[in-house]
């Protein structure tokens, strides 16, 4: 029978009486499921989980800068423990699996589980309600839900109150994009191509420019990231970049006011 990661996450919170998902200690949940969490030097990945005899060792990279990101990695590994541990299993997770652009079904499931555990859909929708979309909103949601900015962006695409599009690039090449269903734009096949020369992402890759928080919403044109239709005007849009220097990656969030 096909598992539904979101239902498993909801049931877990309910079964353990955890009313406030933002305050849940994910390490405790791993311990509860017979796991041990170690913070170690993992040069090639963010997290690793090995499971045998119903026990698990979860290793999390000591190089992760933000506790919110660490929390998402742990929730992702907990997803593997609960969803994919038929007695013995080993998973190694880096940006490609945590971002979900390598669409292995097990990685997508672990990400879906982690997202619902940390940012339950109903609460997320409630927190977005009547809030104007800005980079500040993404930052405040990240603080509220105590999880990474990146995971908030992907959740916002699914359940936010304003259409946005996110382009994930690594070493200057686009790897993956995802947009809200109601964001009506035409996106040609951009994967593996260079980021647009007039994009904010390119400013980082070319000039190492990172904007300060208050300037993080930069004006661009619709044609920067999207193909204009016959009757489209090249209207202003905005780009906000979430940069991870350790992997040399940029998540460009693009939206219209």
């Amino acid at each position, binding site marked *: 029978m096909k598992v539904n990661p979101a239902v498993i996450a909801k049931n877990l919170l309910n079964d353990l009486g955890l009313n406030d998902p933002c305050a849940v200690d994910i390490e405790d949940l791993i311990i509860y499921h017979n796991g041990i969490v170690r913070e170690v030097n993992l040069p090639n990945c963010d997290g690793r989980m090995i499971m045998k005899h119903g026990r698990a060792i979860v*290793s999390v990279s000591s190089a992760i800068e933000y506790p919110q990101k660490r929390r998402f990695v742990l929730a992702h590994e907990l997803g593997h423990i609960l969803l994919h541990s038929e007695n013995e299993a080993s998973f190694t997770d880096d940006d490609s699996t945590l971002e979900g652009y390598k669409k292995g079904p097990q990685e997508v499931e672990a990400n879906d589980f982690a997202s619902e555990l940390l940012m339950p859909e109903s609460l997320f929708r409630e927190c977005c309600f009547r809030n104007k979309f800005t980079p500040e909103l993404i930052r405040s949601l990240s603080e509220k839900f105590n999880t990474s900015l990146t995971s908030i962006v992907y959740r916002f695409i699914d359940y936010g109150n304003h259409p946005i599009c996110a382009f994930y690039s690594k070493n200057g090449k686009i790897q993956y994009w995802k947009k809200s269903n109601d964001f009506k734009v035409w996106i040609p096949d951009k994967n593996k191509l260079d980021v647009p020369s007039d994009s904010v992402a390119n400013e980082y890759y070319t000039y190492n420019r990172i904007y300060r928080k208050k300037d993080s919403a930069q004006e661009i044109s619709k044609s920067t990231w999207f193909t204009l239709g016959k009757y489209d005007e090249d209207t202003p849009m905005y780009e906000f970049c979430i940069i991870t220097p350790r992997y040399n990656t940029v998540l460009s969030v693009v939206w219209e006011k």
Partner: protein
Amino acid sequence: MMENKKINVDGLIDSLLNMTKNHPEILDDMLRERGYNPEQLERNGIAQIKGLMFRAQVNQKKQQQENLYAKALSRFETAKADTKEVILSLLRERAPKLQFRNLEKLEEDDLKEILNESDILDLMEQIDKSDIA
């Protein structure tokens, strides 16, 4: 005259208990009259008890797992001079059911770490069983 008007509090409580025993919905009505949501109160109470049980189990398991891990680690020989191929085949041999994802891409040191962790989990299982026995 005053004595006749004295209220028998114990008697009142007893009659209230008897009445609510047969008609528990009366208590819900009383809570509602005072502005409470009895269903929500019940849910909160249950969640609180579940939460306390969860915390107690986490504390117990944390101690247990840490002891086992420390014992396994102390018995473990870390230095392994095997090559990447040997380690990979050793991993497959020791854990044929293990799901290998991305393993081929990993560096030798990462593979050794996984082998170590796999060994530690084996040792933890052995120690746990021998402790029980």
